[in-house]
């Protein structure tokens, strides 16, 4: 193996790992701040569009309260959506110890040498002195923590490792809690054993196992491959985690008798190569399907006595462990871990995109419904116009039937016509009023229907948001109730009255006086009417008596034309233009949504790119 490394190099490589992790987190955070900006811009612009539109709504317009309700509903939908987004945890962090570093979870029996090894990794010594600890630079000082304490007999006191900043390695004490230490880029966690942990500790241990990049199973060379150890390893292996079996304490005390001193002299030696290999082979055989590379013999004690001798360091097996840890830090699992915040954020963007879909659909559907309604206004009004015209024809025809009797009496005829005109004008006002009423009732009803439909079909899954609330805000159509009706068409009475007044003065009056309407005097619509309703005037020649039929026809046409024009004009002003106004809002909202969706898509693409770049 050419890439054998020592503890210092390993720690350096972990520091690099840590900065890689931090860089990944930064990337995710940057993207999130961009997202937040986009979200905020969207919110502000939406709010502004809606408020502007509400401000533009004419107070006296009968559709105003309905449109206002729709706008409020859109605004509420938007707020609910924003609140929903805010409620998500974007996962823009590493979970401490589980995700922010290479996690090594150490298993093994009490006294198997777990603590000695942990101390060796942390401090370079199995039983570090205070002097040694204080000589380690701050940046490389391990930070100890205790997760939970099981009530094992002879267990250590709560947080003992934390206070002492090392694992206990006494002759008889046992480690009973999940405890560990952090070095930059490395989290080392010591387990009291799969079967010794219960309750909350057990759950935590499982979680550590799930997040571990390496499970280190430690057996002591004094009794390697015990049945209970093998059982536990098989169970751990079944979780599909990268597992390394370490036969610690693969050393012996070589003793001799010093005759001069009269005492025993001791020297630590590695167990013979053959013995170490035999132990590894025995375990490999018992575990059946295990790679012999996944079993290492080592001795921390030997390693610490030969710190400066590369050959003996390798002999100690410690260098191989370091190399293994180093290679794991470069592997895919750790890369995936590194990308965790970006992956979380990427998933968040997915959720966001998914929720934008019904939102967008809602806006588009609403827009389509209103557009449809807008185009249907003339059709609806045309129907009522025809009805109104029919009524006008009926009253005019009636009058002319009775006029037959006065065919020879011009004076009488004119007298009768004058009376008749008064009632025609009353009727005109009445029929236009009714037509507009009915048309408005139809349109408001359809508008409510359209809004109901779109909100129901949008299937927005938003918290604290109900469709009932949306439709409640939209008042029912103004079908019944005279009070509403009057307020609905506030300007109508005066308008029609004005039209009739003009007709009275200008048109027929002149005709009656001079038996014919000459020049511009016979204008159907008076100036007051004309300027209001923008009627085209036309010259009518009346030849009373002889031209009674023709007069009747002309009057019918004139009144029909007034009905049509006034209704057309009024409905255009009151209904069509308001609906068009509403549409400008829905179109704006749709545009905003499209823009924000495009930005989210772009961010999603960027996040994927970053995740891939991180080597996953």
């Amino acid at each position, binding site marked *: 193996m050419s890439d054998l490394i020592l503890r210092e190099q390993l720690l350096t490589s972990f520091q690099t790992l840590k900065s890689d992790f931090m860089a990944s987190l930064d990337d995710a955070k940057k993207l999130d701040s961009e997202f937040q900006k986009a979200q905020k811009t969207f919110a502000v612009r939406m709010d502004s569009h809606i408020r502007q539109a509400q401000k533009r709504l004419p107070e006296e317009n009968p559709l105003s309260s309905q449109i206002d309700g729709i706008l409020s509903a859109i605004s509420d939908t938007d707020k609910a959506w924003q609140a929903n987004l805010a409620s998500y945890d974007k996962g823009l962090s590493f979970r401490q110890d589980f995700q922010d570093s290479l996690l090594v979870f150490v298993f093994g029996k009490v006294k198997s040498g777990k603590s000695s090894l942990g101390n060796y990794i942390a401090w370079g010594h199995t039983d570090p002195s205070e002097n040694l600890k204080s000589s380690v630079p701050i940046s490389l000082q391990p930070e100890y923590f205790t997760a939970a304490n099981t009530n094992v007999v002879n267990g250590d006191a709560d947080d003992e490792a934390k206070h002492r900043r090392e694992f206990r390695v006494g002759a008889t004490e*046992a480690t009973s809690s999940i405890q560990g230490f952090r070095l930059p880029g490395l989290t080392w966690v010591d387990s009291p054993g799969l079967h010794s942990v219960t309750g909350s500790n057990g759950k935590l241990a499982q979680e550590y196992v799930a997040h571990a990049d390496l499970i280190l199973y430690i057996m002591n060379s*004094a009794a390697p491959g015990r*049945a209970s150890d093998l059982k536990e390893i098989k169970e751990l292996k079944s979780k599909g985690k990268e597992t390394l079996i370490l036969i610690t304490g693969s050393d012996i005390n070589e003793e001799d008798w010093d005759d001069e001193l009269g005492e025993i002299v001791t020297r630590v030696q590695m167990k013979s190569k053959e013995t170490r290999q035999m132990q590894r082979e025995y375990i490999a055989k018992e575990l059946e399907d295990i790679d012999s590379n996944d079993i290492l013999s080592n001795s921390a004690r030997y390693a610490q006595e030969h710190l400066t001798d590369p050959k003996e360091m390798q002999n100690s097996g410690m260098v191989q462990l370091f190399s293994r840890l180093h290679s794991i830090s470069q592997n895919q699992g750790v890369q995936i871990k590194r990308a965790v915040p970006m992956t979380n954020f990427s998933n968040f963007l997915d959720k966001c995109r998914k929720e934008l879909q019904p939102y967008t659909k809602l806006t588009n559907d609403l827009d389509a419904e209103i557009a449809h309604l807008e185009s249907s206004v003339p059709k609806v009004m045309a129907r009522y116009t025809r009805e109104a015209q029919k009524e006008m024809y009926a009253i005019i025809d009636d009058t002319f039937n009775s006029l037959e009797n006065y065919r020879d009496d011009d004076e009488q005829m004119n007298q009768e016509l004058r009376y008749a005109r008064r009632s025609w004008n009353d009727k005109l006002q009445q029929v236009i009023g009714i037509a507009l009423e009915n048309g408005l009732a139809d349109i408001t009803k359809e508008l409510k229907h359209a809004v109901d439909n779109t909100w129901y079909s949008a299937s927005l899954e938003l918290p604290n948001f109900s469709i009932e609330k949306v439709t409640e805000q939209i008042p029912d159509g103004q079908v019944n109730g005279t009070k509403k009706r009057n307020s609905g068409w506030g300007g109508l009475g005066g308008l029609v009255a004005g039209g009739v007044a003009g007709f009275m003065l200008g048109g027929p009056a002149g005709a009656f006086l001079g038996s014919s309407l000459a020049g511009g005097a016979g204008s159907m619509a008076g100036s007051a009417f004309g300027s209001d309703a923008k009627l085209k005037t036309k010259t009518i020649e009346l030849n009373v008596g002889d031209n009674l039929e023709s007069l009747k026809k002309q009057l019918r046409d004139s009144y029909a034309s007034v009905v049509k024009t006034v209704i057309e004009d009024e409905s255009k002003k009151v209904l069509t233009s308001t609906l068009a106004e509403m549409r400008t809002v829905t179109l704006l909202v749709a545009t905003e949504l499209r823009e924000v969706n495009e930005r989210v898509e772009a961010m999603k693409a960027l996040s994927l790119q970053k995740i891939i770049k991180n080597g996953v």
Partner: protein
Amino acid sequence: MTAKDSMASADLDVLLKQASDILARKQGQDKPVIAVWGMMNAGKSYLLNMLTHHYNAEYFPTKDTRETAQLKQFEGESYIFLDTPGLDAHDADDQVAMDGAAKADVVLFVHQPKGELEKIELDFLKQLKESFGVYAEKNIVLVISKADAESLEKIEQIEQKVLEQCHLHLGFAPESFLISGTRFHKGIQQHKDGLVKASHLQELKQHIETLGIDVRAVREERIRHVQNTLLLEISAAEEALNDEKLQLEDNLYWNFARFNDAMLSLDLSMTLKKVEYMNERILGE
């Protein structure tokens, strides 16, 4: 189902066989059997090699992994030495080791100084103590092996802790020895008395001598214990069998209850019909 198939009766069969085995056991005037017992790799075989003077060639093979899987004995001048498989090396080994311990008159419980006694060791020791009855305190001897593996200070710390554990869990603290087989071996081979002395092996030997083992008494005590245990287990099995029988009878009764009801009503209706028929005949005449 037949009684033979039932769990309780299967248990009883095993127990009865054990009982006849015990009754057939030879009560001979054998030499005392000294067995080593303990976890795998505790150093049991190595210790026996030293105790039986196998310095150059191992009689009891040793290895740094699981080695002894069967009982193996060596008959010396005054004792029979029995090697047993290490505990927790292999599930099958544990039973063999239990059988070995059952045959022993003295058990040297070997513990290597990797901390105090583990729970599994304590559990085995408790069973062993039970089986020795009144001889437990005397005839179970604690050997802390591989005393060379740690500093004396640590070894003594471990010994003290282990004795405390024994006191707490077994009710007595056995005689204990801090043995280093390798020291003894090297001392003998290189004629270094200092090492031999520091191995404490001679002290263990002397202790065994002073035990003055009354083979007949120990075995009677142990058999008596096994018999008592068996008797208890047999009566428990008997009780279980009885429960099973009651349960069966109960099931039988309930399963037949509807049939019996039906038969009863059939019987009743037959009687009624008969009465009707008789009446008609009388009236008809």
